[in-house]
């Protein structure tokens, strides 16, 4: 009995000595200095590897931030909270991040005229390459949802009219949708401050007559909004109503006067407003963008 115990203890202990000394040797010989800050920053980043910042992965961003080649606000997608977290890890406290979301300037969808029968890959970028796109309107939304697919945060979806709507809670303002949209360069999608109260659902600058023929939901540059706006925050510039968000208070006057219903309450705004006018009250409660009533 005792002999067995002793033998067993000796045998296992000797194996233990060998094993432990190997590891001791290894931990001394193969020691690697990893900057703990890189790990820390990496874990503070969203980890979606979305590439919005122009880096291949969040880990690479972490390395760049620690090296100092990128600012603490480098993560576009993470927004303010991530920037603050990273900043506190890096020991800097100044970070100026404006929360932004993506906005669509088109209310066409099923109201927009098609210029041809399209067949092929259901992608805006694909259709844009064919005879200028399948819409008569040269600045509207094709509605194949390249932005939706590109969104790394699953914040966009197509509504029943084939127009992208943004889930404000999920949108980080990374801007990938704008880059992905073949008409993003000409203002179809735009990043605006998260508390932007209203949105103009048109992106056309051609003659009002032409565009009325191509889409029944467009801005007709009638200037009613411009005239009625109590804050002087909306102007028809280059044949299109444009909101000045610095002045806009979200009173909703423009929304109610627009004969085309192409101005929308942007309900994600914290100061969501009740809107007067027939049938438009519900707008204030609608969660998604682009819920403008259709004729």
């Amino acid at each position, binding site marked *: 009995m005792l002999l067995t115990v002793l033998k067993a203890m000796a045998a296992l202990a000797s194996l233990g000595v060998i094993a432990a000394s190997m590891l001791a040797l290894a931990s001394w010989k193969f020691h690697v200095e990893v900057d703990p800050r890189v790990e820390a920053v990496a874990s503070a980043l969203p980890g979606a590897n979305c590439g919005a910042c122009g880096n291949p992965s969040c880990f690479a961003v972490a390395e760049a931030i620690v090296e100092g080649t990128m600012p603490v606000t480098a993560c576009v997608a993470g927004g303010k909270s991530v920037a603050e977290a990273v900043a506190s890890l890096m020991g800097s406290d100044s970070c100026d991040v404006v929360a932004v979301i993506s906005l669509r300037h088109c209310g066409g969808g099923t109201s927009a005229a098609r*210029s041809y*029968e399209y*067949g*092929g*890959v259901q992608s805006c970028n*694909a259709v844009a390459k064919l*005879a200028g796109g*399948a819409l008569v309107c040269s600045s509207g939304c094709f509605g194949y949802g390249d932005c939706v697919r590109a969104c790394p945060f699953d914040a966009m979806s197509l509504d029943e009219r084939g127009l992208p709507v943004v889930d404000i809670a999920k949108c980080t303002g990374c801007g990938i949708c704008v880059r992905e949209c073949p008409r993003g360069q000409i203002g179809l999608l735009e990043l605006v401050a998260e508390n932007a109260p209203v949105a103009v659902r048109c992106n056309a600058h051609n003659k009002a007559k032409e565009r009325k023929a191509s889409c029944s939901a467009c801005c007709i540059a009638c200037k009613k909004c411009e005239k009625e706006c109590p804050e002087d925050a909306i102007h028809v510039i280059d044949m299109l109503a444009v909101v000045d968000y610095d002045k806009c208070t979200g009173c909703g006057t423009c929304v109610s006067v627009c004969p085309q219903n192409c101005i929308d309450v942007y309900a994600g705004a914290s100061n969501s407003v009740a809107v007067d006018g027939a049938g438009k009250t519900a707008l204030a409660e609608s969660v998604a963008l682009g819920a403008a009533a259709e004729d």
Partner: protein
Amino acid sequence: MSKAAFRGGVHPPEHKEATAALPIEWMPVPARLVVPMSQHLGAPCAPLVAAGDRVRRGQVIGSVDAMVSAPIHSPVDGEVTSVGTCLTAGGMRVPCVNITPDAEQDLASFEPVPDGDVRATVRGAGIVGLGGATFPSAVKLSPPKGVDVGTVILNGCECEPYLTCDHRLMVESADRVIAGAKIMAETIGAKRVVIGVEENKPDAIAALRAAAGEGIEVRSLVTRYPQGAEKQLIWAFLKTEVPHGKLPAAAGALVHNVATAAAIADAVELRKPLTERVVTVTGRVARPGNYRVLLGTLVSDLIEHAGGFSGDVGRVVAGGPMTGPALADLDVPIAKGTSGIVVFGPDEIAPLVEGDQPCIRCGRCSEGCPMFLQPYLIATHANRRDWTSAGLFHPVDCIECGVCSYSCPTRRPLLQLIRLAKAAAMAKGAKL
């Protein structure tokens, strides 16, 4: 001499019989011309005229100071109605000059191209690759220093179905083609000139052989699409591959279309700028044929001249059915690269698909691919918008010949997906 060919490819029904035997005829000057300022690969030209200006046939009305570009000439005597934008056959919106031609036209007279050496003349005449690629010819004639281009290959394959404009040109103006070939060979110091014609055009081969002098080979090629693709043609004759990311000059060859050669001969010998081209109008039109058309003529006018539509129309294609863009609007102008107008009935075209057809992995696309790509793989990744994975399979090497989509039994829009992958890869810095 054994028939040369490349590896891969397909042989779609040719449909050339409707126009192959018809001589080229002039299309009368139309009532209006829309001359786009971008008829070549590269930066678009800036219009040099304004509304109300009188223009002479052959007068330069648009130019730009970029290396890869070609000036635009007025095809007629007339008055500039306006300067605006128009849609090109390729679907781009570009600046254009609208001209109302004079009632009286002398198409035989024109402003001559200013004197200069061959390259300057070719450039001044606004000559670009007339096969459809519209690469400025003067640039091609100036290979980089240290590159020895030993062979000039003239491409008379016309491997696209339906089209016969090059065929007719070779038959009717073989001497111009040969003259152009000689000029080019002399300019770049090439020792060898080969003209490749698909074996389905024996009359063209005979005409060229008759016109060819010493030192010019006219060789017949296996009739197989895309025989006329630059890299494939070089392989067929020289058995060398143009290395990835390099110009054909790197393989010691210069490839020009036969129509380009004829235009170069006209420019050098007659100082004639490029203001018209031969266009095959075929398919569902009343009078199919090959028409010599002033650049800037609207497709609608051309179709009307060809007798209008003869039956239900599904799709109108500018160029051959394998590579030409489909037109959404017939009021687009004929440009330097427009080799044909093919009118298809709704039953003659590939069915419209959604893009999510399954791949049954039959391998026809990769078997036919003249670039030995694996189109199904690129397309599968592209369909999921996984550009990184798609980029691993060399989409930038795609020559967009369309063999993959043509041969796909489930009708997947392979080429369209590959184009997307190619664009994505190039946006990331991949080079052609």
